[in-house]
């Protein structure tokens, strides 16, 4: 079957920033987390997927179809949740729903009512009276009520408290019981993704650093800790990033088994979190060691 989302060599140039040849593929039935620091190109990529921005080159296919040539058709099958609220603030939830539902071919009113109830959103409230979490849930209700096959979310969890974030995870894992759906979401709060994402695509400075199964990433990378006198520590090329303190060092290696084999000294090797990986990559080598100062 065609991938639910496929980006090939996507390029977009701005004066001071370039999205450089982005490639990624998401199959049906999986959740992909799109991570990277602020300004790395996450939102630019998402805007290109939704055709809210003209690309310079490359190709984006949704459900196997070009996202520009078949825009209306593919958008009927997409639900999106963006960071900023894009609703009219002064009208009620119900009024906003009437506007949104008219865009979609497969609008399911009963489903929408059920989601409002499940999410605890009062239909009579004005949009501006909804909290940030409620607005996100309203967007989700709209996205899910037209039976979207692909959910695209830009920073859906930013600014939300842990309770709402965990509710979102519940909703997503419910959704994924259907193996034909797909979810693509960007975030810089990686602890959400540590849990349910199947694939992680990491973007930094407009370039994809890696796009791989989360389990492979978390099981292969290692966080090495030890004293600075270690011989193994003297080859900075082994490390993706290093952090030193007065009493020792901490560094990220890409293949902990290989490192364990080559380093005969006593070191602690831990399983990193996605956040560790993101931080060490973006802090970038060369690291200035204390002695050089």
């Amino acid at each position, binding site marked *: 079957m065609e991938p639910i989302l496929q980006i090939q060599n996507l390029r977009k140039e701005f004066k001071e920033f370039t999205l450089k040849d982005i490639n990624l593929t998401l199959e049906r*039935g*999986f*959740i992909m987390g799109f991570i990277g620091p602020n300004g790395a190109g996450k939102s630019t990529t998402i805007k290109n997927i939704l055709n809210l921005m003209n690309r310079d080159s490359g190709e984006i296919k949704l459900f196997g179809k070009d996202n520009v040539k078949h825009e209306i058709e593919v958008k009927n099958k997409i639900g999106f949740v963006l960071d900023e609220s894009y609703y009219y603030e002064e009208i009620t939830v119900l009024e906003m729903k009437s506007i949104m539902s008219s865009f979609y071919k497969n609008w399911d009113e009963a489903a929408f009512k059920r989601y409002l109830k499940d999410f605890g959103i009062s239909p009579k409230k004005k949009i501006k009276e909804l909290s940030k979490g409620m607005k996100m849930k309203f967007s989700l209700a709209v996205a899910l009520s037209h039976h979207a096959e692909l959910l695209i979310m830009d920073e859906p969890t930013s600014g939300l408290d842990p309770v709402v974030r965990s509710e979102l*995870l519940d909703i997503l*894992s*419910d959704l*994924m*019981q259907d*193996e034909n759906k797909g979810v693509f979401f960007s975030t810089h709060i990686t602890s959400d993704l*540590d*849990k*349910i*994402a*199947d*694939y992680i695509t990491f973007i930094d400075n407009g370039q994809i650093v890696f796009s791989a*199964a*989360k*389990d492979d990433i*978390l*099981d292969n990378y290692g966080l090495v800790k030890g004293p600075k006198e270690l011989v193994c520590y003297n080859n900075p090329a082994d490390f993706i990033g290093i952090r030193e303190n007065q009493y020792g060092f901490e560094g990220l290696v890409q293949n902990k088994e290989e490192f364990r084999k080559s380093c005969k000294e006593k070191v602690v090797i*831990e*399983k990193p979190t996605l956040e560790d990986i993101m931080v060490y990559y973006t802090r970038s080598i060369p690291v200035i060691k204390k002695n050089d100062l």
Partner: protein
Amino acid sequence: MMDIVLSNSSEQPIYEQITLQIKDSIIKGTLKEAEILPSIRNLAKELKISVITTKRAYEELERDGFITIVPGKGTYVAAQNKDLLRESRIRIVEEKLLEAVNASKSSDLTFDELVEMLKLLYEEDI
């Protein structure tokens, strides 16, 4: 029904934690032969983990003969493995006992003393 408790701080990969715990449940008999297991998507949802992880766990369990995956129908606890399993466990006990025998011979422990010690340990453990 089986229990699965996952630890994020453990060095052991999550899929391995799942396979070990399901194996344990099968050995202990909490999971009975031909009993249906949750689907990979359902298990992933309940444990709040990736479907890739649960899929891998099931694949390993199937490879080791603990479960049978019937495409389109479901996943079941496999039939014959209990005897096999018991046998492999007995083999482990034999090996350990042999070690104990060798150790007692080299420290001049008599057979009766060894039996006495084993008896005490066995009863104590319960």
